[in-house]
């Protein structure tokens, strides 16, 4: 249970960072922290007490395996996360070239 609580705290740390930081790159890092906490949560829900890696061993039918599905989901989600982070970083670089700053308070053309 402790692991789940820690994982949720990590998610909140990321959310806090994304809301309060002023630096564009730090916001992107906070988003990555949220992302990692979600992946960790997926890894945790697939774990079964005393389970081993899910490679079927015909000689020992009583063996307990961990759930392989969340691991497959995490792999897919990591690839998606890579794409979103790359996209975000590309936009941050273009913003830096336009405004010459990473401070989000300086970037406020759009209002109302």
């Amino acid at each position, binding site marked *: 249970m402790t692991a789940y609580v820690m994982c949720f705290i990590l998610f909140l740390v990321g959310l806090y960072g994304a809301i309060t930081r002023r630096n564009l790159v730090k916001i992107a890092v906070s988003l990555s922290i949220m992302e990692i906490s979600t992946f960790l949560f997926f890894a945790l*829900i697939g774990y079964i007490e005393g389970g081993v890696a899910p490679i079927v061993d015909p000689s020992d039918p009583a063996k307990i395996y961990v759930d392989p599905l969340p691991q497959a*989901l995490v792999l897919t989600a990591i690839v998606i996360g890579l794409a979103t982070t790359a*996209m975000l970083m590309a936009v941050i670089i273009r913003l830096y070239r336009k405004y010459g700053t990473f401070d989000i308070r300086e970037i406020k053309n759009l209002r109302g």
Partner: protein
Amino acid sequence: MNPLIPLLVVIPLAAAFLIMIIGRFIEEFNKYFASLVLLVLTCISFYFLFTTGEKISVYKVGGWEPINTIPIGIYMVMDGFSVIVVCIINLIGFLSVFYSISYINRYTAGNYFYSLFCLLIGGMNGVVLSGDLFNIFVFLEISVISSYALVAFGVESNELEASFKYQILGGIASFLILFGIGFIYWRAKTLNIADIKAAFGTGSDKTTYLFIQILILSGFGLKAAIIPFHAWLPDAHSSAPSPISAMLSGVFIKAVGIYVIIRLFFNMFVISEAMAVLITTLGTLSMVIGVFLAIGQWDIKRLLAYHSISQMGYVVMSVGIGMILLSRGAKPEIASLAIAGGLFHLVNHAAFKGLLFLNAGAIEYTLATRNMKEMGGLAKSMPVTSATSFIASMSISGIPPFNGFFSKLIIIIAAVLGKFYLLAVLAVIVSIITLASFLKFQRYAFYNKSDNNRNQAIKEVPFPMVFSMVVLSIICVLLSLLVFPEIRDAILAPAIDILTDPVKYSTSILVK
């Protein structure tokens, strides 16, 4: 097994890659190929609209059959509700892509534009057709990432800023959704929507269940820009190229936001009164606050974007009224009337909001400004744009005999019959304010005398843009035919049937 279902996802994804490869060698290939692909997709989706009806067809990816009635493959489901949304996605998609044949001349890098556009369409079709929760997330991310890129397509400072905001809020929404999916898998040990319904139906602990519902509602609510989550929408939708604004506002927020919320809350969760009241409240707030934010805008695309929030509020509110009535178990016919009004307004909004954004794009194309104060007197020089935007403005403000009138009428009648008098009054007031704000748009853009002479030299936009606008305005008028009971029964009734019946969706998928 219907082998045509996956084509709706496979064709646009393949087209995206072909455009990038072949477009390098053949000039102008991208424009005509993308239009052809979207035309084919529109034909396929209308074929489904006429053949689906009451039945639910399932395609199992990879041919994995269920073992002991436990589904193990990825399911794609085509039923009465998803077929309507698929039709509007591909139809508005075709008209926008045809429109951009001339509009794209404002930009360079046409190959990237059309490739991202095809990915956007493929992702949205995937979200709507998927019967599996994690696949909804994957397709959602495909379409959302391409929309991030398309919003930033102009790479000027405003576009980049809008795209950055959109990406941060979109990223938070994606992780909330992923967290919710994790919780659901933890509790139900399955990801198939029909199977989750069966697993949750047999009593589960209330606290986790409520937490999951809140996570899913806030995640998809952020994608749909319901009011407390709306901050990104006006920036993103007004900064994108106009055909993309038409796609994002007309279709995208419905396909990845409203559609998924309606589908999951009706067909996956057991409808509870608390959640139904929450959804209705959010919808009413969007409806009222969205229109007040829109009044003061002078940028046409920002004005239209705020009206999208308000009009989506109508859809969410009326579906919420249906949910409240269903959860009380009383008056099922009024509940189906409210849901019918919501779905009807969803289809109508796709038509007139798509048309309005294409009109705004046409004005921007000729005048190179989006500020209403700098326009005026365009009715003579741009007659088609003026006439079509008049039809669209009257539709969105609910003037008979255009389509918006009938859907708002159904929503208001359902609210009165269900004894939600306050909501009915608010819906009428919001409709009047919408009319005021669109009369301002008409007057300043098309009729007000302009004091500068350059407006005399303006000509009507090229043929592809005119064609798309005229077709959409004809659709705006034709959609009001859906109010007749015979046509409504053929198209809207199967969707309402699948939403109001609590077990039909899950049982008919699980036995196949």
